[in-house]
């Protein structure tokens, strides 16, 4: 198939045009054909009738009381007057007649026929017209069975005599061939011009598409932050432009997230790497006691361990913030997830003698979520609640329903977060107090991961906090539909 839209449009358009033109041409041609032949036929018929009148007058002259014409009587030559006959008498005339009996024998024929005969068809019931060839000329012929009682009494005809009247019609029908020629030439030029016009229109019609494609090229070549904002773009294509702009936006966001992630990750990895390098370099500067080497190696091991934890968390974050598809959404018990989380973290909580409460009023809440991702989100939140809590503190967990959302609230009695810092806690690698959280094993990615996971679930996390009183983290998740 032709792949160019332009060529296809033009071909399609030409096909329609050709069909239309040929139907129209045929209608015109055959209408004219009918008009021309009707004209010829009526003139032929009137000639035949004139002859019939002459013949019947002749017969009346021969026998006044005859009710029918006998065969022998018809042998007689008719005395056609010269004024009527002159058009048939010249051998070069193009008007012919031949008078026959019904059996086909000729009674009389015009001089213009010469040696030729008009073609005869034996059974004729009424005036019958034909187009035929005579002496190499195209002629129109009428077979007119003469009514015995006179020209006007066709109702009860007697077919004793058949009057054949013919006329060369080339001259009269030449208008038809000329008309056909004119039609053909016209159609030819119309098609040529239409093809050219079609190409032009198709090109014009496709120009906005080229414009938009150019605009898209410009955006993707130069800068993803640019947008298609060409005034030349047609209204019909605005939607395409909008779609592309949306695609660019999400691409740009993905790119920026990716860039930010790479920059954050490399930044976070540079510091422990510096520790490892410095430890090694300083240790190697001179001979040392085995104890010193051991201390240096331990420090390096700890740092490397932290790096690997960091890398693992970074991968988790990258997974959850980039790939929407990995979530396997299913109906899942929120109570179950929180139970699982608490079981996982209870050693940590016990270490700090933190009491975790969760009212067991028997109500179960189900949400749509991924059975691996959701616990990860809650582990990070509860882990923070433990880390930033005071010894002998409390964590109160409650679940409630609000509209389409199921809300899990995790309230701690910890150190709290300052107003200005609240926004930042979700930032990657943000730690309210680095040295302190590092001591408790934090690397500042937990809440970022939680937020990404909850966001991928179509929910959100809200944080309220009071310094030295504690922090309340509310996780909004969409509830399972039939509850």
């Amino acid at each position, binding site marked *: 198939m032709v792949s160019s839209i332009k060529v296809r449009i033009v071909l399609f358009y030409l096909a329609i045009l050709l069909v239309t033109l040929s139907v129209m041409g045929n209608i015109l041609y055959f209408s004219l054909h009918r008009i021309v032949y009707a004209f010829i036929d009526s003139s032929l018929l009137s000639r035949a009738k004139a002859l019939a009148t002459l013949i019947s007058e002749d017969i009346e002259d021969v026998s006044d009381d005859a009710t029918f014409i006998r065969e022998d009587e018809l042998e007689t030559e008719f005395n056609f007057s010269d004024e009527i006959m002159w058009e048939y008498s010249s051998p070069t005339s193009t008007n012919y007649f031949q008078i026959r009996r019904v059996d086909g024998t000729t009674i009389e024929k015009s001089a213009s026929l010469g040696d030729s005969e008009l073609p005869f068809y034996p059974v004729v019931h009424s005036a019958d017209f034909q187009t035929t060839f005579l002496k190499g000329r195209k002629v129109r012929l009428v077979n007119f069975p003469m009514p015995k009682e006179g020209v006007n009494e066709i109702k009860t005809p007697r077919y004793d005599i058949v009057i054949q009247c013919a006329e060369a019609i080339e001259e009269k029908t030449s208008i038809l061939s000329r008309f056909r020629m004119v039609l053909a030439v016209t159609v030819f030029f119309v098609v040529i011009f239409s093809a050219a016009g079609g190409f032009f229109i198709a090109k014009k019609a496709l120009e906005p598409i080229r414009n938009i494609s150019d605009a898209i090229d410009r955006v993707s070549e130069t800068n993803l932050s640019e947008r298609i904002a060409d005034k030349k773009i047609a209204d019909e294509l605005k939607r395409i432009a909008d779609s592309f702009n949306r695609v660019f936006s999400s691409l740009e966001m993905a790119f920026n997230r990716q860039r930010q992630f790479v920059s954050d990750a*490399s*930044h*976070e990895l*540079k*510091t*422990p*790497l*510096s*520790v*490892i*390098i*410095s*430890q090694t*370099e*300083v240790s190697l*500067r*001179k001979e040392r006691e085995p104890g010193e080497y051991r201390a240096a190696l331990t*420090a390096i091991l*700890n*740092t490397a361990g932290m790096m690997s934890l960091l890398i693992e968390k970074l991968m988790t974050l990258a997974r959850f913030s980039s790939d929407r598809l990995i979530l396997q959404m299913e109906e899942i018990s929120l109570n179950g997830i929180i139970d699982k989380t608490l079981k996982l973290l209870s050693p940590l909580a016990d270490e700090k003698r933190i009491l975790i409460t969760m009212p067991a009023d028997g109500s179960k809440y189900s949400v749509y979520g991924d059975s691996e991702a959701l616990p990860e989100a809650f582990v990070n939140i509860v882990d923070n609640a433990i880390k930033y809590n005071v010894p002998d503190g409390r964590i109160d967990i409650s679940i409630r329903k609000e509209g389409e959302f199921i809300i899990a609230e995790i309230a701690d009695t910890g150190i709290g977060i300052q107003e200005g810092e609240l926004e930042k806690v979700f930032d990657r690698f943000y*730690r309210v*107090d*680095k*040295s302190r959280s*590092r001591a408790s094993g934090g690397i500042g990615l937990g809440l970022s991961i939680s937020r990404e996971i909850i966001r991928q679930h179509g929910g959100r996390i809200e944080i309220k906090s009071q310094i030295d009183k504690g922090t309340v983290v509310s996780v909004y998740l969409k509830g399972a539909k039939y509850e």
Partner: protein
Amino acid sequence: MRILIVEDEKPLADIVKKGLEEEGYAVDIAYNGEDGFFMAENEPSDLIILDIMLPVIDGITILKRIRKAGIKTPVLMLTAKGTVMDKVSGLDSGADDYLTKPFSFEELLARIRALLRRDSGVKSSAIEIGDLLIDMATHEVKREGKTILLSAKEYALIEYMALNKNRVLSRTNISEHLYDHDFDLDSNVIDVFINRIRKKVDRGFRKKLIHTLRGAGYMLKE
């Protein structure tokens, strides 16, 4: 020479401190921006190693405040932020040098030496006082071509005096630049060190280079 490290990553700050101390520097550490600014203002440091991403006050802000307060101590930015814009912003805020993490400890040492040298108007890594030659790159001290063996602290003292040659240095001044914050200033350890390097540097030579100015302090002079 006394160096202040402002760095919130404790393991990094600690190992850099250890390495620098082994080179004879006195080192103080501030683990956050607030302490860092306070110590930069109140401790007589010869050089400040400053991180940018710090809790409480960030490094760039500390740097601007230090310079606004008229403190001209050389500042070496030591940070993970390594883009050109980061470096430009750091240097424009008043930093004297910029080193990105991860760094080589040797390079850090070389840059520290260069900054200290520049600060005392010395152009090369070797200082000559008469026939005494002090090579700051190798920590080698020679007199009349003969190598003098010194401990790290003894070397630090002669280097400090050489960088401040022809200037009277009080005991307090010397101890402030040779010892970190935790050193007890009442101790007469400076006199002990002066006596030790005097034995090694001046004994057996006709011309004495280390001078005692009664009630004022010591001076290294040709």
